[in-house]
């Protein structure tokens, strides 16, 4: 009985939510009002980034991205604090077959290169620091799953994480010192659509890429460990 009421109640909320969201016209061009239009018209000129999504994420709304980077950092730290154990740990997996091992060894460097490519070209092509970092972490995950003895050095990962995070804040503070405000783009914008363009945007995305890659790798390794 209680379950039936709960389901009915959820159904009611779901229906009400859906019917409201249907009131918002879907698929109609609505960018002509609001800030969206300004981003579209002037984004390329103002930020020099060919990828408009990146220019919004890293430049116009870069403060949010700093916050999101912190959220990820917090999640990793919180996880580390909760799974902290004084006893030695080991990975709870058996060795994989020869095929997987060989495949992983060949694919691993390629995956890392792809990840690096994605975050270095974040201001030019779809992708960016978060995506590139996630790709890199997936490469490490492949290695963890194939080789039981494959270990990463958490001290190095934590150093990468800390320095990448600090680089983001330092770039912001330099904007405050040499430009008009925190996170202001103080480097020349260059020619759009070339690798060295868009000022600080690629620098921030490279830092984010390193940070996300290191964080997710450490997180995956911690979660795969069990107490001996």
């Amino acid at each position: 009985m209680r379950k039936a009421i709960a389901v009915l109640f959820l159904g009611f909320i779901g229906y009400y939510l859906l019917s409201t969201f249907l009131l918002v016209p879907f698929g109609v061009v609505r960018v002509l009002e609001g800030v969206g239009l300004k981003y579209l018209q002037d984004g390329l000129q103002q930020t020099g980034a060919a990828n408009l999504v990146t220019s919004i994420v890293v430049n116009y709304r870069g403060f949010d991205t700093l916050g999101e980077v912190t959220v990820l950092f917090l999640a990793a730290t919180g996880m580390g604090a909760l799974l902290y154990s004084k006893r030695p740990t080991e990975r709870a997996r058996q060795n994989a077959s020869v095929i997987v091992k060989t495949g992983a060894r060949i694919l691993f460097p390629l995956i890392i290169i792809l990840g690096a490519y994605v975050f270095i070209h974040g201001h030019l092509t779809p992708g960016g620091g978060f995506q590139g970092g996630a790709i890199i972490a997936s490469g490490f995950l492949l290695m963890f799953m194939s080789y039981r003895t494959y270990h990463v050095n958490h001290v190095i990962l934590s150093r990468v994480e800390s320095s990448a995070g600090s680089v983001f804040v330092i770039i912001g503070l330099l904007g405050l010192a040499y430009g008009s405000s925190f996170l202001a783009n103080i480097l020349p914008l260059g020619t759009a659509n070339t690798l060295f363009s868009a000022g600080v945007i690629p620098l921030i995305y490279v830092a984010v890429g390193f940070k996300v890659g290191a964080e997710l790798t450490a997180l995956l390794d911690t979660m795969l460990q069990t107490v001996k």
Partner: protein
Amino acid sequence: MYLDPVLMIALPLFAAFLIPPLARISKGLVKYVPVLIIGFNLYETVMLLPHSMVKPVIVIIAAWAPPLGINLTIGPLGNVLALIISLVGFVVAVYNIRFVEEEPNEKYHMLFLLLTAGATGMVLTGDIFNLFVFLEITSISSYALTAFLRDRDGAEAAFKYLLIGSMASTFILLGIALIYATTGTLNMAQIAVRLKDVDPRIAIMALILLITGFGIEAEMFPLNGWAPDAYSQAPTPIGAAFGGIVVKAGVYALARLIYTIFSFQGIFHFILIAGIITLLIAEMSAIRQKQLKRMLAFSSIGQMGLVLIALGLATTRGVEGGLFQMFNHAMIKPLLFLSAGYLVFYSGSKNIEDMDGMGRVKPLLSFFFAFGAFAILGLPPLSGFWSKFIILSETISHGFIAVATLALFGSIIEAVYYLRVVGRLYFKAPHDGAKVQYVPKSALVAMSILALITLVTGLYPDLVMTYLKPAAAELIDKSIYIKAVLSAGL
């Protein structure tokens, strides 16, 4: 002379990123980092006060004027709340110096620093999505800190909090999505201007989603199921931080929402009713608690009920009273929690009945607890009296006699359970098992600061009220806020 206010957020984040390498150099230094950084925030908020009282300080970020970029809008309200948050954060950071010996303690200090930074960001930002991001920072650090002791109860409380908190985040995000889809902007001032052209069905849905989400953080009934467990199972300083920091940021978001952004007339009555129900249910639950910290948790919910009543009145004087109540609660509840933490530690039990005679064993600690209890009850001339008096007299003068009667009834229940504990502390013979040890000086300093503030604001309420008046005016007359933001951009 103040530095760029964005440093109040940038520096804590910077410090948090640098704590892991610092911990490898010297473990002992880490615990002073939050004291230093939050101390800087405290300095900033005090120095900003004279400026923000005259005219909201607009801080542009990434060189894009609002609404294109994100901005901090530091009006009287945001500044006062940032001051409260930094003050409580600073005191708790001092208390933390000798409290946390558990490994991995550098992570504890890092999480605590980010919790304070997140709450500061919530009250300062002028952008609704940025508010969401800072809410995430605040709540994720709260989840991790709740379970920090890694025991069964802590994990359960943290998991409960995590589930309900994620629901809150989802609701808020959906609400923001609706607002952005219909107004095309995320700047709170601009949303406030444009919302009147939006289909009311969509606006009301967005309002419901956002109120539900922030109501969870503000401990509004019936969304406060997480609070008693989280308060009582988290390490003591974190319980104090929930009452003084996290909930304050949640209530701020709620107030900003109903006054500045939406300002629908009907909503105020809803908040008023939600407030009185929250107050009564919490006080009635509190009196039935056997554990000291759980009792304090329910009492904290009750106090927030009183704040909601004040906000629901929607009059200048009422809002002033509500803000004053928030200030008092932010000073007194941490004092109660911090002293209760050591009382629990020395008596070796969480139960109220084992607190017998602690007044003789630990006179100073018990004095702090009793002082806090009297202050929160509203015993004149302590500070709790003035805020309760303003709220109740304002409720009566606007004809809500029934609400005022029920609120007074709640106060009587509150008096019963607080005095019961104080009575046990002083008028019962101590148990044999009580440990006699010295309380660390840092903890005593932390508690003395809070007690002193409570005493001074009780004797001279005008010291605080001078700053709360413009803050209340900012909520009642939303055009001040909107004009300040929009003249900075466009």
